[in-house]
């Protein structure tokens, strides 16, 4: 029974990703007083791309087409660890959040290789900028997760979630606040949202993530877009699970599950509104200003670790 629940939760996460993306774009449009496309548009887009042919540059090797597929697979596996509705994710074992981080790193690694293979200077540029961002993002990400793990004295994600769940709502420890701040900064950079990289435009100067995928078309592009959406969904789910896990059902009774789904949807709504508001009122940062963000994130996460010492044992 629990396996089915975990599988359901896993599939739900995969499928709901484009919906999330659509909702955010729609909300941003409303904030800018225009009607905006329907929230189901990303699905249509993916369908269209899957049917188109795959255009491959002459100099590219088989890696060019293999990279997006493998990256997609990796991102999908990364999602498997997340417990959002039900208390533990599809897979959970000691130190699994590190595996999650490195799975994402592997996906990025392959995307960069794909960009190189394209043979155009944009690919290289995108890859090198992505490298800079990812390098700086990884340290705070790991540090904040370690801080949480140390605070919760637990090895795996599900254990941390269970522990935070047990804490009552109001005495939020300092560690959590700091870790939450650091993680949000990193999440923004990781998923390529506005202050770090504008997902919408294809302007040479600014684009970070798009530059890498410029050469792709057809199903490869579809997979990349979907993986991107899943990553966004994953980040948000991670934030929710780690910092607002109350109400996650641990038992098997239908009532508890329904309640947790309801709560999750509410939390998701809040997150979407937050992202939309943030993106519409912030301009894109200059590329070399981005390291400052990571400086702050790193400082926050180190502080979080220092505070874990103060935690009562």
């Amino acid at each position, binding site marked *: 029974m629990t396996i089915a629940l975990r599988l359901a939760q896993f599939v739900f996460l995969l499928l709901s990703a484009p919906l999330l993306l659509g909702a955010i774009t729609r909300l941003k449009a409303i904030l800018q007083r225009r009607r905006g496309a329907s929230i189901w548009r990303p699905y249509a887009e993916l369908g269209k791309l899957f049917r188109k042919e795959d255009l491959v540059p002459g100099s590219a090797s088989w890696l060019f087409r293999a990279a997006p597929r493998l990256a997609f697979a990796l991102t999908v596996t990364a999602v498997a660890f997340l417990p959002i509705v039900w208390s533990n994710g599809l897979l959970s074992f000691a130190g699994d959040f590190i595996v999650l981080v490195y799975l994402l790193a592997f996906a990025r690694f392959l995307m960069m290789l794909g960009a190189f293979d394209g043979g155009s200077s944009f690919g290289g540029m995108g890859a*090198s900028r992505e490298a800079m961002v990812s390098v700086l993002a990884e340290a705070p990400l790991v540090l904040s997760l370690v801080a949480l793990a140390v605070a919760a004295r637990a090895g795996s994600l599900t254990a941390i979630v269970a522990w935070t769940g047990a804490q009552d709502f109001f005495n939020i420890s300092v560690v959590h606040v700091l870790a939450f701040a650091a993680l949000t900064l990193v999440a923004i950079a990781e998923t390529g949202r506005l202050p770090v990289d504008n997902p919408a435009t294809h302007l040479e100067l600014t684009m970070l993530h798009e530059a890498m995928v410029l050469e792709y078309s057809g199903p490869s592009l579809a997979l990349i877009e979907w993986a991107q959406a899943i990553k966004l969904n994953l980040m948000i789910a991670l934030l929710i699970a780690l910092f607002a896990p109350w109400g996650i059902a641990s038992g098997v009774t239908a009532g508890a599950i329904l309640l947790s789904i309801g709560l999750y949807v509410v939390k998701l709504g809040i997150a979407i509104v937050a992202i939309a508001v943030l993106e519409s009122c912030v301009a894109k940062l200059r590329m070399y200003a981005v390291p400052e963000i990571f400086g702050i994130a790193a400082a926050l996460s180190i502080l979080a670790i220092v505070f874990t*010492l103060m935690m009562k044992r």
Partner: protein
Amino acid sequence: MAGGISALLGILYALSESDLKRLLAYSSVENLGIIYLTIGAAMLCQKNGAPGFAALALLAALVHALNHAIFKNLLFLGAGAIQYKTHSLKLNELGGLWKTMPATGAFFLVGCVSIAGVPLFNGFIGEWMAFQSFLAGAQLSHPAPQLTLALSAGALALTGGLAAACFVNVFGTAFLGRPRRMQIEPETKMPLSMLVPLGALAAACLVIGVMPMVLIRPLWALVEGLIPGGNFESGAKIGSGIQMVTATVLIAALAAILIRTVVRYAPTWGCGLASLTGRMQYTATSFSKPVRTVFQPVYKASRKLEISPADKPYFPTAISYESTRTLHYEKLLYRPIVNTIMTIAQQLRRLQTGNIQWYLLYIFLALLCMFLFMRFR
């Protein structure tokens, strides 16, 4: 501490390196740094009465050392193969080798991926166990070791990230895209004798990556001997965890690959330019430029830009840009020691005046000193 510093510095220098072999050498410095980090962690845990975690940390060090041996070996042999083919190891000149050396390319890819320390490959196993030992160590009661271990986890993450970026750079510039400016003799076929070892090592990387228990079990017995009382349950779980991860990845990858696609080959889109030449691609140094600007204080690179003719800066006939980076450790650590020794030696040399009277004087003085020594002894 030393491990952390050497890891960070090693990878930073590796990133800004454009010669393949030097880059690999620096990355060895980095990996050794990581190994020292884990050994340090083992010692800390041992001292603070946590033999279980100490055993784990030591095991991580051993595992990483072995893995490092395998994939570093693979990369060096690969570099040898490249040199055999193209007689040059300057990354900025290589490119598009995948077409001419598909087999070596594939094996080299496996090497690069495993050194980047990503799951499914053996580089990750060592680093992951290192993380776990840091995590476990961080739960020790004393504040000082706890803090150091936690921070070293951060350092390890940073080095991991840098390593990944660095080896993307290596593989991308060397094998993918179009050949920049170097002549390849297509007809020199890679001799089988070169390919077999590469293949074997790549296979080893994969096998250990997927089934780490193959490596961990024998090592565990060794560690057990060294630090009694180490618990093995965390080790066992590692193996099973990895298996599950690999299973899911394989299923997902299969699903993705099954999508039928119609493939069409077309020249890469050059924004309307006549044709994209190889030189337009990003080279190794340009790839690492953003990271280098971020870590400017470490490199203290000095830049020299000459535009000729000097009077008309906007109609340059030739631009030369040259940036050199200072090697800190060289300047601060080794130079002074060597200088002091040399000055002392010069002074001593002057003692050997060549005049016999001085020699006799030395003997009498020695006698006098010994006499006094005898007096007071």
